[in-house]
């Protein structure tokens, strides 16, 4: 484990702008938190299976049948921009 985190780069991966001030503050705080979690290195985890969640269920299936759900008006009710019953997105392909 390494406590070296590149906050600017990681924020970019998360699609999150951060200011110079935030970057400096987060760098110090997250380094401290990552230093704290270093203690997990002490634990012998050889042969231990990981736990993703605690429900005793896997692969829940249902019939693929159409059901009543949102109308277009409901689906668009909270859209910051819309036109012609569609969400307006920022151009993806140049």
């Amino acid at each position, binding site marked *: *484990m*390494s406590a070296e*985190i590149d*906050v600017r780069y*990681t*924020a*970019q*991966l*998360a*699609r*999150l*702008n*951060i200011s110079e001030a*935030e970057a400096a503050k*987060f760098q110090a*705080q*997250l380094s*401290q*938190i*990552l230093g*704290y*979690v270093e*203690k*997990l*290195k002490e*634990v012998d*985890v050889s042969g*231990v*299976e*990981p*736990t*993703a*969640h*605690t*429900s*005793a*269920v896997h692969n*829940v299936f*249902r019939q693929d049948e159409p059901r009543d759900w*949102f109308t277009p008006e*409901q*689906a668009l*009710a*909270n*859209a*910051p*921009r819309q036109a012609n019953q569609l*969400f307006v*997105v*920022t*151009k*993806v392909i140049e």
Partner: protein
Amino acid sequence: MDLHTLSVAALQQQLRSGAVSPVEALDALEARISAVDSKIGGYLSHNMTHAREEALRADISKPLGGIPIAIKDVINVTGEPCTAASKILQGYTATYDATVIQKLRAAGAIPFGRLNMDEFAMGSSTENSAYQRTANPWDLSRIPGGSSGGSAAVVAADEAYASLGSDTGGSIRQPAALCGCVGLKPTYGRVSRFGLIAFASSLDQIGPFTKTVEDSALLLNALAGRDPMDSTSIDTPVDNYTRLLGQDLKGIRIGMPKEYFIEGIDPQVDTAVRAAIKQYESLGAEIVEVSLPHTEYAVAVYYIIATAEASANLARFDGVRYGHRADNVQNIVDHYMRSRAEGFGEEVKRRIILGTYVLSSGYYDAYYLRAQKVRTLIRQDFSRAFEKVDALICPTSPEVAFKLGDRSDDPLKMYLADIFTIAANLAGICGISLPCGFANVDGTKLPVGLQLLGKPFEEAKLLQIAHAYEQSTPWHLERPVV
């Protein structure tokens, strides 16, 4: 009679005897909210128009008929705001009911109000709300706990008969402890998460805040059950959670995990919890010492797993379908980066970055996978302990409510406030916090919470054990003067 002070069970009796109408019960709350919420700040909003219409046609023969229940701002209620106390969802209006809301309505209850919380349920003091601070009703200069601080404060201040919150690492139990009410985190999968804004999907669970243990059981009766809309909800038969209330504790074995009685606990908390353990002995329960050897790793495991899941869950805030969208963007990446930066608050950003880091190439095995393995060891600790005992007993929080602003600049210290509640979420078991006395801090009485942890899906027994103690002590009868 001060209607607003009633428990759910007592209000139900008044409604069924015809002494009080559902509209009067609602009006009493509204008057109380007008009188005290400017001091408490528990409600982000409380539009009573719909609630009053529902009260007019309430069917009091139903299990929770005519009972108003206040809702944390992270659970969708049709036509109401649902912001998770974040600027990124400012102006959002829910277009559907969460399953728990459908279930409350089916039981005759009246969901109303939006309760303050830490933004996206990330915090332990409700100070991370983007909108307002919430005060502890016992001392207005102190925090109510978090993340469901509003849910706890309004019940403690008699501004709600009961409320719903959510618990990812203690967000129901810790504020219940700090505000002196009862908070129940059901077993993971017992209550549907559909319509709950997701923070960490393998840990989140919805549960009730109430004035009494009996009320907690009454609400769980309405909330529990498998939901086809939540594939992690379990079809284990729903119990009658009031079934065992009033039964004595003969033959009940309660474990005292030695790792939960350590240096650093507030001496007054330690004293109150040890007195509660003595009380259990006098009620006929057998107390045995047990060990949960991986306890000291729980906070570290939690802040890797919870932030990893949060970074994925919060990726849906892209400024397209709902939520804040930045103006005058240059391109799609600029659109995402600025919309999210302008919408999310500081703690949410910190956790998204941490969660992204522990999942990123080169670090996944060292952090996330290792944390998932240690999570298995923590689960096994509980399975072993529950072979010997029916429940575990410990403090809910190592301390009483701290002052507003005390921890705001020290995230790690804030994270350690959840040291006793986090393991239950990692293990998926059920837990409850109930009042077990008061600490005296500079002449102010501050509530102390007792935590009981139970086996998966054995909420009925957990509530029985909690109820026996509650009924033999006066703590739940004390109310703050607001």
